[in-house]
């Protein structure tokens, strides 16, 4: 128990910024607790996040606000069909005076990159960004430049207006740790939004966290204890997406085209540890895994035509699995 107590103490010391962050974000964002919690988890787990929701649900605002609370560099890139990879990562420009090529870096060189409406740019731009997400470095000409830590890509896409969009291929969407579905606020929340946006007062968002604090928190989150029973639970869930018939879920086999990749199990474990950190626990409980399953796995399960014809979503599949796999 001693080591877990030690981790608990470390968490208590290192997690104080979580409350400050939540407080500052709460100044401009009403409700959307789930989305904000997921953003913090991605921040702590060093993963990237994809937010999907109809326009006007404060996806962009939430990311901008989160970036504003951290003393780090923030870039916003509006993805459009005519965007080029060089607009994103930078390019070599010829300097006539010096008679040489000089490097001009693009907006991706920031700590927080908001890729707004990522599905509006063609595949070559998406892949330039996704390469940066995976390798955390950019190569322009002969120069290879490391991206500064923390580096977090927060992408948004809306499920409407699919005309003229370039849906992210499965291999690329797999690199996002989580795909969070942003829902409408409740009636009370919307009333507050209404009041906030029609009043004269405007709230100032303060920078309350240093990047070093986040990097330190990440190191502590890695130390959080993950029992082998939880590991088995995670593996059971992941393998049930691949071979549902082995878990008494033969009825959903025909609905799944392909199951989760190993990234799914890695990200689920990492995200669960981050969730435990946010809850100030030195160990992971099944609740952590269960609450994150939907967000970590929904974009990793390929559905068959049969499932689409029956309007069955990957969330339905995940629910079926969670209702069948025994909690340790």
């Amino acid at each position, binding site marked *: *128990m001693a*080591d*877990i107590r030690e981790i608990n103490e470390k968490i208590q010391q290192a997690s104080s910024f979580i409350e400050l962050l939540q407080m500052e974000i709460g100044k401009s964002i009403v409700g959307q607790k789930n989305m904000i919690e997921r953003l913090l988890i991605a921040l702590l787990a060093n993963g990237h996040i994809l937010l999907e929701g109809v326009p006007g649900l404060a996806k962009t605002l939430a990311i901008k606000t989160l970036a504003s609370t951290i003393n780090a560099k923030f870039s916003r890139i509006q993805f459009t069909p005519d965007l080029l990879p060089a607009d994103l990562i930078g390019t070599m420009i010829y300097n006539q005076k010096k008679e040489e090529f000089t490097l001009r870096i693009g907006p991706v060189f920031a700590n927080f990159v908001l890729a707004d409406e990522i599905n509006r740019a063609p595949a070559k731009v998406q892949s330039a960004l996704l390469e940066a997400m995976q390798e955390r470095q950019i190569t322009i000409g002969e120069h290879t430049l490391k991206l500064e830590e923390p580096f977090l890509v927060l992408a948004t896409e809306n499920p409407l207006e699919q005309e003229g969009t370039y849906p992210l291929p499965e291999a690329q969407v797999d690199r996002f740790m989580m795909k969070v579905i942003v829902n409408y606020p409740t009636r009370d929340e919307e009333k507050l939004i209404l009041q906030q946006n029609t009043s004269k007062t405007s709230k100032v968002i303060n920078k309350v966290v240093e990047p070093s604090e986040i990097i330190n928190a990440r190191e502590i989150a890695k130390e959080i*204890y993950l*029992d082998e*029973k*939880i590991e088995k639970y995670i593996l059971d869930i992941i393998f049930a997406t691949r071979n549902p018939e082995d878990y*008494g879920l*033969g009825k959903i086999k025909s609905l799944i085209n392909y199951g989760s990749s190993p990234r799914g199990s890695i990200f689920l474990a990492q995200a669960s540890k981050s969730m435990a950190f946010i809850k100030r*626990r*030195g*160990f*992971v*409980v*099944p*609740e952590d895994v*269960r609450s994150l399953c939907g967000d970590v796995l929904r974009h990793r399960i390929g559905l068959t035509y049969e499932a689409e014809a029956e309007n069955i979503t990957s969330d339905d599949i995940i629910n079926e699995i*969670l*209702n*069948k*796999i*025994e*909690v*340790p």
Partner: protein
Amino acid sequence: MYAGISYSQHIKLQTSIDTNNILIGDQINYSIKLFPDNNEKTILPLINDSLGKFLVVSKSKIDTLIENKKKVLSQKIILTSFDSGLYIIPELEFGFISGTDTTFFKSNAFSVKISSVPVDTSKPIKDIKPIMDLPFAFMDYLWYIIIGLTIIALVFFGYYLLKKWKPKVKEELPYDPKIPAHVKALKDLNELERQKLWQKGYIKEYYSRLSDIIRLYLERRFAFLAMESTTNEILSYFTQFISSSEITKQLKILLEQSDLVKFAKLIPSPEENSNMLDYARNIVQSTVPIENDDNKDAK
């Protein structure tokens, strides 16, 4: 009918043809009859695929008949020829063995005129006739239809059998459904106590088993997926059924303590370990379903 007869004391051999004038390719029926005595054996000439200039189309087996109380050996041979002209069906030699004596008889030879088809050379040469279409006869296709339908019927029958006799996966329950949930839970708790797991140092196993017994009991007793639910979910369901805050509190302590032992390496004191077992018993005993009087009467 053109016939030849060979005699000794009585008729021994009779051969005949049905015509001595045919068109090229037409057939001649050549009939042979032997009249041996009752104790006589016969020697027949070897007839292969031709007889003189004539081709043997077919020959029947030698038939043995009784005519006027006498044995008659009979054979029919069908002959043809594709050369025009006058040709001879040669004489054939037949032997009759009686004891140690053998007597040979020869049949008569027959001359047959084979005429070619008269051709009117003054008329132009006609093209060969096209292939004739036979009128559709249902009977010609009847067997194909029957075979086809039989195959289809067999395929459907096989599919039906496969579906019907497909081994059904029987979901095995971890308990006997005939035993009431509370009876099994209390029995399992007694067994857990008897095993003395925590006393032997198997604390994690003790709490895993303890929480499993309670979760299985709750699943059966309140019909929700307790085995597949987390601690918070179980407590949320439980409070919907049980209003007693004391029991809910005990369940919360038990499940949370189990989680700490299972997932956070907590080592509780011996007193806590035995308290948890008491809590578990109390939770089960306090939530045993009350049988109504009607049911009792019925029993």
